[in-house]
């Protein structure tokens, strides 16, 4: 409402001034002997621009504006630059019963989770699961249909200088193609009262200082990702939201991001990284939030997720039937496989080998198997994938 007032009042003033001006004009009054063109100039230039100036410089309508205290000096002990200082106040991201509909499409459906400081949290889900929509709602870009998304207990729109609270990278390719990287970052920094020196620092941090004066349209995808990370780190925020940050990065770049995220998390920051690749997240994230079709599928630590995945022992023997009954007698579960092998669960490979040896049964193959994280993830999200590829036609089957 305040915003509407701030826009409307100057315009109302302009309108009133012109009604008054027109009345003076119509009555042919000579006000203080000023020629009409002088009045025209005064009104023409002063009122609309005065209105805009008021809009911009005017006192805070709510009377909440406070004088700026002198900036606190940060004791600058030179050390590792990432991260330079710990966040002033660690913040939790809380998404509560969030639903977002776009017309008939429900992108996010009653999603609730919390992201805690000090960990890297992976936000996983197949394409179209609602990850990006959720991040947009957290950033105040999209209004939720139902529910809330709070950062540190506040709506994003309430932040006075949000880059100091939340650093975000939604789409690395969303760059002004005609503007040099330096000016892109500078404009972003200026909008939140961040100085030029810090812009230079993040350019060095991301290894872009030599290409700072090149236009972003000339950048490779990897350089764009680095520039996006640089923008997210501008104000050293206590919260980082990154959407698919490793897309387009080379292995060295991926390792760099991983180390950066770990260092920032170790520093007590709250880090939410989205991805559709389980293998990537398994190496980076401490905690996983897995979504599918806008719903929460899993909210678990990465270690729990890994240990929860199945593991078994494959054994191939010419006397498989005999071995199977021996194994079952010791309490293990045995499933025959297509090629005559046995899948054994409830017993490790060494015990299976010992058992076979003690009964003089030859073993041709003995292997401990872990279901890959990727498989567990696919099993979890498979049912909720929007556009699953159809089954492979028989003629094209690889086997």
């Amino acid at each position, binding site marked *: 409402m305040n*915003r*509407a007032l701030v*826009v*409307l009042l100057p*315009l109302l003033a*302009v309108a009133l001034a*012109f009604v008054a*001006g*027109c009345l003076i*004009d119509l009555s042919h009054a000579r006000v203080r002997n000023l020629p*009409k*063109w002088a*009045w*025209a100039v005064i*009104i*023409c*230039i002063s009122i*609309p*621009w005065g209105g*805009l100036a008021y*809009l*911009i*410089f005017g*006192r*805070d309508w709510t009377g*909440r*504006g*406070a004088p*700026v205290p002198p900036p*606190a000096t940060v004791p600058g002990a030179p050390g590792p630059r990432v991260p330079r200082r710990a966040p*002033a*106040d660690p913040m939790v991201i809380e998404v509560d019963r969030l639903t977002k509909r776009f017309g008939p499409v429900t992108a996010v459906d009653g999603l609730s989770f919390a992201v805690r400081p000090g960990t890297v949290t992976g936000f996983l889900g197949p394409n179209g699961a609602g990850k990006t929509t959720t991040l947009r709602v957290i*950033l105040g*870009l*999209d209004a939720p249909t139902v529910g809330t998304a709070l950062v540190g207990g506040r709506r*994003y*729109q*309430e932040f*006075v*200088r*949000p880059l*100091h609270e*939340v650093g975000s990278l939604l789409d690395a*390719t*969303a*760059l*002004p*193609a*005609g*503007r*040099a990287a330096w*000016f*892109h970052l*500078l*404009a*972003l920094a*200026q*909008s939140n*009262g961040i100085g030029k020196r810090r812009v230079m620092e993040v350019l060095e941090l991301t290894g872009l200082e030599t290409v700072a004066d090149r236009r972003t349209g000339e950048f490779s995808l990897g350089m764009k990702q680095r520039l996006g990370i640089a*923008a997210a780190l501008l104000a050293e925020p206590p919260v980082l939201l990154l959407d698919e940050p490793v897309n387009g990065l080379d292995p060295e770049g991926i390792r760099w991001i991983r180390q950066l995220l770990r260092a920032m998390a170790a520093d007590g920051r709250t880090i939410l990284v989205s991805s559709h690749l389980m293998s990537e997240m398994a190496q980076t994230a401490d905690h996983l939030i897995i979504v599918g079709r806008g719903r929460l599928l899993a909210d678990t630590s990465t270690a729990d997720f890994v240990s929860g995945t199945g593991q078994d022992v494959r054994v191939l023997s010419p006397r498989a039937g005999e071995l199977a009954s021996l194994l079952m007698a010791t309490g293990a579960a045995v499933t025959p496989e297509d090629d005559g092998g046995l899948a054994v669960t409830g017993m490790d490979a060494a015990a299976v080998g010992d058992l076979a040896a003690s009964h003089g049964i030859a073993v041709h193959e003995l292997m401990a198997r872990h279901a890959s994280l990727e498989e567990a993830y696919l099993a979890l999200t498979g049912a909720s994938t929007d556009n699953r590829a159809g089954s492979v036609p028989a003629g094209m089957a690889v086997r």
Partner: protein
Amino acid sequence: MTVAQLQAAGRPVPSRAVRARDVLASEWTKLRSLRSNRLTLAIAVVVTLVLTAVVAETFASAPGAGNHPASIDRLAGSFLAYAEYTVLPVTVLSVLVFTSEYASGLIRTTFSAVPRRGTVLAAKAAVTGAAALVVGEVLAFACFFLTQAILSGGHGGLSLAHPGALRAVLAAGFTLAACALVGVGAGAVIRHTAGAIAAAVTVVYLLAVLCLALPAPWNIRLGRFTLPYAAYAEVTGHPPAGLLSPWLSLLVLIGWPAAALLAAAAVLTRRDV
């Protein structure tokens, strides 16, 4: 509440004025750091000045011009080239202020850095409008003096002291700012470059052309509320019957950009980005 919380956390809370100045500085950096902006503007200025000289030469050499100085509008004639070769490119550049950010997705970065979208709109409008006003006034004076210097070779040009001359020059400059703000508003409302340019050009030119096609009393009756007619009423020394007074025309010149910006403010704050 939020400010109190921030103060409790020991974080400096900048006043609204400081924040607004930051956003203004940011938008000014964006405007000046695009090479295409500078290039387009430079070309527009050169073309305008050259064509203004050509128009003035044509006037000066028109048969009978010396005998009937009133037969051609020496004042409005100064701005013929300016009205097209400056106003059109500047309007298009102003449309791009918003639509280029929407096209690239940069608008999300902008709005996540400054969640008060009204402030972003105001800053973009202020920076673009101020730049257009400066360029417009400088060019309007240049066009006026250039034209009158060339005319003075033939049958005597006007001086700034001529009745209505200063008003005409200042209003011509202001018209550029008005058109630029129409462009900014149209870009924010429509978001797509092609559509927004079409809308802005419709307001800035085409409505007047449409009105020209109407039957006799209605062409002026409706046309006088369009931007080109209003601008013409400001700059001409010999207004045709039926045009609004310069005062009311000024209201029209401000009304269109005000309407565009108001629509933009209403739409920006309600829409998902």
